[in-house]
């Protein structure tokens, strides 16, 4: 049995694929499809369970349709590819064939945010959360570390309904456990204060750096990791929103339609009176090429810029 520490030390993509491997090795009905996308930790799956692994080729729409057919015949399917291609390119296939029939298929997208920054706007995963969020039946998981990535595979295997898992890579600091289990949908990384950061995915550990910066100056800011972007857990309103004066929603996704929009919608519905600031990616397509860090600086999503944004608010709201 692996401890939290063992899992946290893994690359989150490896942690996810290890869990998928474990699930598939005990259930022959689990099938893994890829649109010719590789991952080192996936090779073991391919080698050990070739009958459950199929490279569909560069045909994402067909991958979703074949996934639907497999699921209609009782299979549980992971369909893996680059985030914008396995989501937005296949939007209708997902809507009609997975969601409207509520089939057990997990779409696994890599290249979250600007992680494929150098490959240009076609590869940027900055609109996928906004677009996928419009599908009523879908569950969206945006894990932020190896623990939540591993849990994402388990959550899908448990619910067996249409799920989008937005997968990242790299190792991240320990972010703790949710109050009950990963079924909670969010975890409080730093206790809720008057001013809180609500974030998801890759930006959670960046936000932790922001919180730690202010902590070192004696200012307490709460940090909430919403790794299940849809549906937002019911408890979120009572446990976070209504207790907050100010929330910064930090996400590596367009400010148009992502987590920030979702939090504002809930605040409006709950009439919580919370001030909400969206810190995300500008509503545009970036016809430019560069590293993830470069895009973050451009979007004021680097730790320094994020600290400045929070500091500005604090300066204006001194008691």
């Amino acid at each position: 049995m692996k401890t939290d520490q063992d899992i946290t030390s893994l690359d989150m993509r490896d942690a996810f694929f290890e869990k998928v491997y474990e699930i598939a090795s005990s259930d022959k009905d689990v099938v893994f499809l890829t649109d010719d996308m590789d991952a080192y930790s996936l090779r073991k799956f391919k080698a050990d369970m070739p009958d459950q692994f199929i490279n569909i080729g560069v045909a994402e729409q067909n991958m979703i349709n074949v996934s639907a057919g497999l699921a209609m015949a009782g299979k549980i399917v992971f369909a893996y590819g680059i985030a914008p291609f396995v989501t937005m390119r296949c939007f209708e296939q997902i809507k009609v064939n997975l969601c409207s029939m509520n089939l057990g298929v997990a779409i696994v997208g890599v290249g979250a945010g600007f992680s494929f920054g150098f490959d240009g706007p076609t590869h940027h995963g900055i609109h996928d959360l906004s677009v996928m969020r419009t599908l009523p039946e879908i569950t969206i998981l945006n894990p932020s570390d190896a623990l939540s990535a591993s849990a994402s595979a388990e959550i899908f295997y448990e619910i067996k309904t249409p799920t989008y898992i937005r997968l990242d890579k790299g190792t991240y600091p320990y972010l703790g456990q949710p109050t009950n289990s990963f079924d909670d949908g969010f975890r409080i990384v730093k206790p809720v204060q008057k001013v809180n950061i609500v974030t998801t995915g890759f930006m959670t550990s960046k936000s932790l750096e922001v919180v730690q910066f202010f902590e070192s100056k004696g200012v307490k800011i709460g940090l909430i990791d919403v790794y299940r972007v849809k549906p937002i857990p019911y408890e979120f309103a009572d446990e976070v929103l209504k207790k907050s004066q100010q929330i910064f929603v930090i996400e590596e996704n367009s400010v148009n339609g992502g987590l920030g929009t979702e939090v504002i919608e809930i605040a409006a519905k709950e009439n919580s009176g919370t001030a909400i600031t969206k810190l995300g990616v500008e509503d545009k397509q970036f016809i430019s090429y560069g590293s993830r860090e470069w895009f973050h600086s451009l979007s004021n999503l680097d730790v320094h810029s994020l600290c400045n944004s929070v500091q500005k608010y604090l300066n204006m709201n001194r008691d």
Partner: protein
Amino acid sequence: MKLSNKNEQNLIDMSKWVRLQVLDQIAHVGKGHIGGTYSCTDLLVSFYYGNILKFNASDPKWELRDRLLIGKGHACLALFAIFKDLGFISESTFLQYGKDGGALGGQLDINTPGVECNTGSLGHVLGLGAGIALAAKMDQLKYNTFVLLGDAECYEGSVWEAITFAGEHCLDGLVGIIDRNRLSVTDELQDGALFNNFEEKMNGFGWNYIEIDGHNFVEINEGLNAAMNYKGPTMVMANTVKGKGVSFMENGVEWHHSVPTEKEISIARKELS
């Protein structure tokens, strides 16, 4: 199994009955796609009454059933009539067709027993069928997966992604049937590119190819039986006539979704009786 004269007559009678049911419902509610429904009525009747499809009327989800997926879901009314006759749905459900909030509308959905998948957007179902046929192969089960496509539907790129995939994976028991009525919603289909040398195209993709008269029950029976026994996927090109069975509707592009007048209904009824 060869179709006997008696069985052929039964199928002819059944097709007339289905067409009349379709006519009555469209006349009753003023909605429906009569032309494209009539072009595939004989095919649908063959599936359910011609010993093609293995199914269990009391258990529409029987695991070993043959699957029939419909791409051109707007031809649903013929299927509803068949489902009523087979007992999948009740007479009262059938009569809900076209009513606001009724159980049956202008497309198919899985809330209706016997329906395999939701329809409405063209070009998806061959990929779904390929997935089902792949699952059958993985599970070493012998059921067949039939996919009925409209000919205009074959312009969708996703149809060709599925053709490529099924050919590469040599999916036994996957049978596509193209309702080749040569008319789309607004126009006559040109043969210049899409269907030109179609047999060679399909063979090149690793598919078997059969061409039949989609209104001749003997040919339908022989074609589909052959398709089931071939190695790898098979495409059956069924040459049909849009509006088949009613003289003034046949080959008329306007009958994609026109609703007949009272006078036309009475003529059509006579011709179908």
